[in-house]
């Protein structure tokens, strides 16, 4: 058996490139003075280089379909998600730099960890074997645990890191046990081979329990009810720039792998799993939107909204249709842009010790900073799912997939809970535009972060009006 070939190296070039640059970044951090800025620069270059590699691998016929003994999928799906993760990473460090400088916590380690987490995501997005999925999740999560506790002298940050860590490790246990059971019943961990084995083990309860346990692991990572307890506290306690990254990149990576993994059992139209997934989706939508109603802290509100959105996306998996999977992929793009933008704005306005994240502070923002307020309003409308913003198209696809797979009740529940969510998203707008400001101190906006947020805003309008830009890409990969 050949260990590997050159074309395999080329095929995994996005991961390799990013790995290379993360090592350079680490060295730069250790060797250079004024290292944080240098590391930032290296990270940006590395991400862009990796994006170029991903685009190269997207549709390159000379490359193999899989690499490293079927551990990884190449091109198409993997490249699409790679670009998504890398863009999320890029945007999030652009938001993070001014934020960390303001908080006087600007160190090179931050970027190195972000890069390593992104490597984990890239592995997740292309993994075709339960082993690489497991390792991808772990690389990503370990970096997240550390990033959540990045403000090491702050209580809230350490506490959220501990909570995230304990529950995360707990969920890892379930995921692993699920992998073990599936391995035990099918004799392989490779998804491509599990598919062929599936009819033989269809009625084996141990196998089904295995999928159930894996589902618990994923449900935890994507923040679905009832494995959502960590979300509000961790989102609130972690540094805002980390939350921005975690809530978008972490979720996108988990979903990318969730889709691939569960396309195996779902391809058999296993009624039992469909039901479980549908209940998960329903629970997440209800709980997320219900608790979102009573929040007064913007970060916490977005945390509950993130639970709800996980619910919407699980609809796509439950439907088991390519339509639903495309919907999830599109939704992830829209959601990533929206949340990065929203958290970017929160990070710009946040005061010392995590103050100024309550709704009250946003009163009158429409007058104080019209551009910023307009962007935040757009993000809220996109989260609500109102056209012409990208969030609507995503929801349309997901609900369409639910209707097509005869889960109309789920779609109806989805729209009813969206209605709840309308109320709390609108509240932000009510505060920004319809209330008078209480505090009129000048707000200074860091340019880098502001430009990033504007790009997010342009993105959600662009993809909302011309969704085909993404869907045409996806036709070949689902």
């Amino acid at each position, binding site marked *: 058996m050949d*260990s590997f070939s050159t074309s395999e190296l080329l095929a995994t070039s996005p*991961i390799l490139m990013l790995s290379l640059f993360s090592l350079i970044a680490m060295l730069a951090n250790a060797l250079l003075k004024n290292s944080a800025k240098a590391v930032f620069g290296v990270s940006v270059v590395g991400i862009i280089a990796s994006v170029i590699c991903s685009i190269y691998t997207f549709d390159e016929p000379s490359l193999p379909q899989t690499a490293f*003994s079927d*551990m*990884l999928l190449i091109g198409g799906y993997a490249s699409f998600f790679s670009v998504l993760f890398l863009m999320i990473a890029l945007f999030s460090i652009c938001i993070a730099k001014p934020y960390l400088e303001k908080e006087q916590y600007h160190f090179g380690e931050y970027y190195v960890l972000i890069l*390593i987490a992104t490597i984990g995501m890239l592995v997740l997005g292309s993994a075709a074997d339960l082993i690489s999925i497991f390792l991808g999740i772990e690389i990503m999560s370990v970096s997240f645990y*550390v990033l959540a506790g990045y403000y*090491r002298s702050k209580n809230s940050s350490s506490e959220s890191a501990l909570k995230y860590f304990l529950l995360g490790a707990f969920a890892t246990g379930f995921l692993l046990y699920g992998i073990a059971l599936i391995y035990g019943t099918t004799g392989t961990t490779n998804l491509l081979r599990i598919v062929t084995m599936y009819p033989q*083990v269809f009625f*084996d309860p141990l196998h089904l329990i295995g999928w159930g346990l894996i589902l618990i692991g994923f449900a935890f990572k994507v923040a679905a009810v009832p494995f959502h307890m960590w979300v509000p506290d961790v989102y609130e306690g972690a540094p805002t720039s980390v939350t921005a990254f975690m809530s978008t990149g972490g979720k996108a990576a988990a979903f990318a792998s969730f889709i691939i993994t569960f396309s195996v059992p779902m391809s058999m139209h296993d009624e039992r799993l469909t039901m479980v997934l549908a209940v998960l989706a329903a629970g997440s939508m209800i709980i997320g939107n219900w608790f979102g109603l009573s929040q007064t802290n913007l970060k916490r509100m977005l945390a509950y909204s993130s639970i709800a959105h996980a619910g919407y996306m699980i609809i796509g998996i439950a439907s088991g249709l390519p339509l639903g999977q495309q919907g999830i992929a599109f939704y992830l793009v829209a959601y990533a842009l929206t949340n990065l933008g929203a958290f970017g704005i929160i990070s710009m306005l946040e005061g010392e010790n995590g103050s100024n994240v309550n709704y009250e502070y946003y009163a009158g923002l429409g007058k104080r900073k019209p551009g910023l307020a307009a962007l935040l309003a757009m993000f809220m409308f996109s989260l609500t799912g109102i056209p012409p913003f990208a969030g609507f198209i995503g929801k349309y696809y997901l609900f369409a997939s639910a209707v097509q797979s005869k889960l109309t009740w789920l779609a109806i529940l989805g729209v009813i809970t969206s209605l709840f969510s309308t109320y709390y998203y609108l509240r932000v707008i009510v505060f920004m535009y319809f209330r008078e400001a209480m505090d009129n101190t000048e707000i200074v906006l860091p340019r880098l972060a502001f430009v990033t947020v504007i790009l997010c805003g342009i993105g959600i309008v662009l993809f909302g009006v011309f969704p085909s830009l993404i869907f045409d890409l996806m036709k070949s990969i689902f």
Partner: protein
Amino acid sequence: MTFEQGVFYFLAIVTVVSAVMMLLQRNPVNSALYLILNFFCLGGLYLTLNAQFIAMVHIMVYAGAIMVLFLFVIMLLNLGDDKSLRQHLGLRMYLGIAFSVGLFLELLYILGFSSANNYTQQSPTAVEMGTVEYIGKILFTKFLFPFEITSFLLLAAIIGAVMLAKKKIIQ
């Protein structure tokens, strides 16, 4: 009952008992010691399953490294006895016990029906599989990618651990 089976059952019972004892101990140090006992028994079980290399690595990594780290931290933080378990025998705890026992029974029940019951005989290749030679070979061919990528996992862990445990913020 053959000798091997005897060893297996002995180790299995000690493993389970030590796991339960770990839970019941109020002092974290005692808990940790029971966990180490548990790990040694596991190592023995691996040997009975013809996984010699794993058994050695397991003892070295878990008992040698991880548990020492645990004990070190427990000592460092100077933790005393845990509050008695009875003090917080709340509803949540009953629920927790019920959940765990339920899970256990369910697994038992399912094992009764599972295809895994066919696994009464060890595969003939299993003996050869546990050797260092075989594992080394396969680790660097078929499992090359995961092997390499774990280096990043460890890297993240090192950076993170150093960063989090550092005392002062150097500006």
